């Protein structure tokens, strides 16, 4: 019952965030000193064409009325029509979001698989060379621009060594698996399509390394510091005093407690992966939401920008909600509080 109340509170909170985000985005996208109709139709359009376009997108109506029309649309599940692609924004999002989701999951996997062991390793060998290596790598991860990193990764992994493909989600002549989730790895598994599975996995390697480097660094640092804190606790000394093997002391007693703060930032990290995908997607020709958002913003495609923003506004709190729910089960103290 308490859990349901907790869940309900969070969902109401998400709805409030969405309304706020939609108002702010709508306002900002309508005060830029450029006309979306001009952006869409360009240099050559006649005044009559511009006027017709403005009428089609209700740009000739007062701003509050435009907002009301937009909200009514959303309530009916209609996110409007993109100015740039001339398609329903919902369709565009359905096309591009799974690609970003897949890339973000892969990057998150990289961050966890590399970040957590690196953090532990670094904490155990505090002040010695493994720690120094991890800390330098983490510092680099936190400070290298993604665009530069992406070009280096592609230059090395694709151009120089030829181990990985240079971009896209599948090899040139591998047809995509039948769409169920839009995540090619999952879809190709469901369809038992080994070619597509292999191809989609290998295409994920370079972009997920690029996108995941920053969050790997964050997770490694977080794990290191919380591990250091845990390693000095009384119960660790007790566990050692009981004669337990060091490995069991670290993994069973140390890691389990040290991971709690790490779990907290996974939700945040996942959100930042989604938004950080913009540059990675451009470098790796990844047909995802980030690239869609950039192209939409450049062409003042405000229905698309609003759609992307709303989607991001859902994803962030939902990812955090998922973490909170996980927490709720993990840490009994939260259930009480």
């Amino acid at each position, binding site marked *: 019952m308490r859990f349901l109340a907790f869940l309900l509170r969070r969902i109401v909170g998400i709805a409030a965030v969405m309304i706020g985000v939609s108002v702010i985005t709508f306002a900002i996208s309508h005060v830029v000193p450029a006309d979306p109709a001009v952006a869409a139709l360009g240099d050559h359009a006649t005044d009559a064409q511009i006027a017709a376009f403005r009428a089609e997108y209700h740009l000739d109506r007062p701003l509050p009325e435009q907002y009301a029309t937009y909200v009514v649309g959303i309530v009916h599940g209609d996110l409007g029509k993109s100015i740039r692609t001339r398609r329903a924004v919902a369709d565009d999002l359905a096309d591009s979001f799974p690609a970003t989701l897949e890339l973000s999951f892969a990057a998150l996997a990289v961050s966890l698989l590399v970040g957590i062991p690196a953090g532990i390793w670094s904490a155990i060998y505090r002040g010695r060379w493994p720690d120094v290596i991890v800390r330098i790598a983490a510092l680099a991860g936190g400070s290298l621009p993604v665009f530069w990193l992406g070009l280096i990764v592609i230059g090395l992994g694709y151009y120089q060594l030829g181990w990985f493909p*240079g971009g896209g989600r599948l090899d040139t002549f591998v047809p995509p698996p039948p769409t169920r989730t839009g995540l090619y790895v999952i879809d190709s598994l469901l369809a038992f399509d080994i070619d597509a599975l292999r191809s989609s996995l290998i295409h994920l390697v370079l972009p997920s390394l690029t996108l995941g480097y920053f969050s790997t660094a964050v997770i490694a640092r977080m794990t290191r510091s919380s591990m250091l804190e845990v390693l000095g606790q009384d119960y660790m000394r007790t566990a050692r005093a009981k004669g337990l093997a060091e490995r069991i002391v670290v993994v069973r007693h140390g890691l389990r407690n040290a991971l709690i703060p790490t779990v907290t930032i996974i939700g945040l990290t996942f959100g930042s992966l989604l938004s950080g995908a913009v540059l990675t997607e451009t470098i790796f020709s990844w047909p995802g939401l980030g690239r869609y958002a950039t192209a939409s913003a450049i062409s003042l495609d405000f229905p698309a920008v609003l759609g992307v923003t709303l989607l991001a506004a859902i994803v962030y709190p939902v990812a955090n909600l998922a973490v909170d729910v*996980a927490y709720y089960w993990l840490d009994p103290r939260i259930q009480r509080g």
Partner: protein
Amino acid sequence: MFRSIRHTSIVFAAALLVAAACGPATTPGPSGSAGASPTASAGGAASTLVWYSDVSDLISLDPAVVYEFSGTLLAHNAYETLVKFEGADLATIKPGLAQSWDIKDTGSTFDITFKLKTGQKFASGNPITADDVVYSIQRAINLNKSPAFLFTDIAQLKPESVKASDASTVVVSLPKTASTQGFLSILTFTIGGIVDSKAVKAKESAGDFGSGYLLDHSSGSGPFIIDHWTKNSEVLLKANPNYGGTKPTLSAVLVKHVPESTNQQFALEKGDADIAKNLSPQQIKALQGKPGVTTASGNSLQLVYVGMNATFKPLDNADVREALRTAVDYDGIVNNLLSGNAKKVQDIVPAGLAGYNDATPFQADVTKAKALLAKAGQTSITLELLVSTGPAPGGAQWSDIAAKLKDDWAKIGVTANIKQTAQAELLTTYRAQKGQLVLILWGPDFPDPDANVGPFTDYNAKSIAFRNGFNDATYADKARKAAVITDPTARAAAYKDITDYMLHNGPYVILYQPTAQFGLRSNVKGFVWSPVDWTDFASISK
């Protein structure tokens, strides 16, 4: 329970990634990328041309809708037109689906009678008839999408202007205020693409003239048919077995959306791409001499220019405008900034079109420019130079060209304050006649001098002349008359008069005409870029 699921999923994810990283036979192959599968939907890499470019502008493949660069390239290869230009030659209109055409002055109209070739078929196998031509033109007019103004405004057509007099004869009536030459050049463009009316009518839904279907399918008679379009990723064209012309040697063309030019260059050098479209001049230079790759260039009809708003003092003074034109170092822009990827053109009609005026009297003459300013009673002028973000045609950044202009003008005492904005914002200001100096480009809507001379001279057309406050009724009238002259010699003379005048009196600093640069694999033969932004894939082999 929770923990064990988490462990399992992490182990599973790890296994997948490791498997991917260690997977054998995954090295991208020399042609057609990693592991060209035998189940290849394109029928194998050997006869498939892989074309890398930024196709983010693609919104439709319907010939009555496309007006974007990528859409033009693709639709041109899937549809045939009544008449056409071949290769890079825009001077001679040649037979397409029509074997002949005849222009008759009926007194009240110009009637153009097209005789269709016999035995021509669409990809579906349906015969091509006069009804298809009438349907296609009426369809474009009725749909009224971006390119429709070419028919409705420029050629001044109404749906009833097009009639089939028998199964292989079409008559189009133009009002005498429209240019027959202009109309014929419009017909060479994608909007003139003839669709299979039987097939398209079968796909019509809610009065959309089948545009929902033609958005990502083709129904034409061109050398290729559209196999699929995966949004934001690729478009695959396959050879049309019923094509009536010389059969293409390529079995398929795959257009991949790759926005990053470095990525395009890598893929070209690795052999994954056969042609890369969006390489910078530096990348083109870097490719030269490398094994397995070559470069090609193509003309464009664009002009990069500065509009000088004559409603703004002191730009209302013709001597001030002439001084600004005189001071610019055009050779420096073309040779240094653009590494030669452009042609020095100083008049309002680009090279390649009838009416091109090759006079280039201006080149960084500081003394003369200062004298002109003195004559105008000006010693120091401060103006705002509006410029877009991003790269300009020819390869330099818009801001670099603006900086060069600022330097050149500083030498004659003119201070240009550069204001850089997004293209959309710049256009909003420019269209409202609120710019002072605006650095921008123009490409003609159809390959005819009227597509430049009209907008550049006619204030009432509310295009470029209006935006720069250039209101010269005499020359606007001369431009309108030149457009409808049917005798080529008389037309050329009329345009010579107009362009000579505009060279010194127009409110424009025409800077250059860019060339398009491409990276190619050495085995790609027969590639010719048309100045109207497409290439005939049927003439390419590899």
